[in-house]
């Protein structure tokens, strides 16, 4: 049954022992929690993993189902392997479901916003579009695309998508969304899953990179196009973003081509100017950042952007 607080409190050193597969995990620390459960950093046989646990077993089953489907993607690795799905008794005999996945270390896109340059924004967007296109070809949309669900991996600098709670089969109602990134909220389309839904959310992510950050104000009259016009930092990308908001790209690749076209032609000077601007705004940016960090429901599952061949399957 659905629970108001599906989060599960665990502490460093707690042992999680699977009822079915008998693997034992040691909890290291909390990585994030949200409306669907809690994610912990855990260890097993000296290696680190991410463990998601929820009081609502349907959340665990649904998300691990999605991860299993990603695993079936032919020749393309969409996300880290799903390592384990099981139930465990916690303390006084409460039994909760959990799943275990590869741990990816890095910072979210929202944590990077204060230092993001235009060229880098273009590159990140382009990589995301490549990943989204693969996802769309599999018959799914990501759904809950937002800066908090986009992680830049620390070591490889790869862009990865986390939290599969919103992943929805094309043609169905979006399972999970966040108000500002939802096409329906801005009255620019339906809540039915189609590839353009993701492109809309991605366009909002790009607008959010602008330090002026006016979405909250604009929510009064629901006019996101006005916000776009006022977001000066992303001016070079304005026409691409507008097309994405209005659903005018045929697919993710079409948007990617336009993003790449603009990115390539960005003068180096623009980027330097932008960095200076960013520095000048830094004080303000830090406040925004703190606000964004607090909304974290970070690690779910990671959708790799590099196309690694899955030989195991």
């Amino acid at each position: 049954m659905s629970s108001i607080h599906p989060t599960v409190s665990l502490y460093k050193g707690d042992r999680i022992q699977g009822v079915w597969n008998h693997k034992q995990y040691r909890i290291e620390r909390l990585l994030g929690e949200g409306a669907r459960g809690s994610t912990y950093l855990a260890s097993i046989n000296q290696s680190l993993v991410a463990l998601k646990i929820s009081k609502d077993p349907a959340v665990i089953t649904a998300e691990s189902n999605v991860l299993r489907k990603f695993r079936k993607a032919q020749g393309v690795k969409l996300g880290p392997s799903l390592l384990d799905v099981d139930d465990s008794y916690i303390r006084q005999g409460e039994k909760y479901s959990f799943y275990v996945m590869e741990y990816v270390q890095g910072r979210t896109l929202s944590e990077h916003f204060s230092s993001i340059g235009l060229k880098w924004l273009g590159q990140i967007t382009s990589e995301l579009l490549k990943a989204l296109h693969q996802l769309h070809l599999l018959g799914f949309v990501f759904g809950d695309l937002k800066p908090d669900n986009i992680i830049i991996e620390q070591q490889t600098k790869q862009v990865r998508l986390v939290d599969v709670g919103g992943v929805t089969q094309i043609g169905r109602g979006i399972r999970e969304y966040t108000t500002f990134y939802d096409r329906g909220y801005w009255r620019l389309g339906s809540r039915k899953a189609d590839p353009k839904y993701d492109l809309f959310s991605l366009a909002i992510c790009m607008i959010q990179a602008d330090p002026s950050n006016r979405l909250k104000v604009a929510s009064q009259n629901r006019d996101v196009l006005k916000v776009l016009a006022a977001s000066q930092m992303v001016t070079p990308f304005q026409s691409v973003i507008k097309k994405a908001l209005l659903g005018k790209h045929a697919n993710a690749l079409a948007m990617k081509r336009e993003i790449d076209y603009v990115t390539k032609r960005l003068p180096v000077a623009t980027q330097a100017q932008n960095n200076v601007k960013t520095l000048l705004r830094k004080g303000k940016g830090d406040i925004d950042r703190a606000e964004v960090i607090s909304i974290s429901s970070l690690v779910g599952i990671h959708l790799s952007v590099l196309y690694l061949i899955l030989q195991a399957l």
Partner: protein
Amino acid sequence: MNKGTVSQILLITDGCSNQGEDPVSVSQQIAQEGITVNVIGVLEDDQTEDPTGLQEVNDIAEAGGGISRIVYADDLSETVQMVTKQAMNQTIQGYVNKELQQIFGKETDEESLPPETRGEVQEVMEELGETCDLKVLVLVDTSASMQNKMSSVKESLDDLILSLDARAGSHYFSIYQFPTRKKVVKELLDWTNDGDRLAKVFPKFAVGGITPTGTALKEAAKAFHISMGDEVMRGAAYDVVDSSYRQSL
């Protein structure tokens, strides 16, 4: 696969009932007929999040087999669509578990299956959630204190319809208000799936004084009997679980 209808009443109120029948026992009766009662309590901006006066909100929903939330008017949109969806999933879950018990024996529910099999059951439930027919009767408390919350209520219903429109299954909603000057409860909009009709309904809301929640619920629930066939999703008449699940165990 047969498709059933999930039937819900969504009560939006801001306070205790103070007249007429006991809403908790009425809610229980309604639930026995296969209709879930969900309740959203709307707070005043200066109210704390756990006011004692709104305890009834939780009690009515619990008796009605539904979900309750107590929120500020600003959060209504998010809450209304979420409560509707979660309650629908809950109905389907309870119903699928009943099926599982028929196949595997009394003690079986989804959680006693191994995780892999559970995944398959989950897919069946998601399929059902997407394709089943859904009837939502929205019962809005229009006692005087609700007056300044009406625009939030309307917005949240617009948002709900947006979410319902995205489903593959069909949906119908109707809107009732209580109280009115002459009657305890009044139909403002008969069963429809046309979201545009919502805009024409809202100016009609007249605001009254007393709060006869129980009686209003009872009257409103009659709307299901008049227009509904026998396919209420609760019995065991549906072929929900594919026979192949037997093999995978």
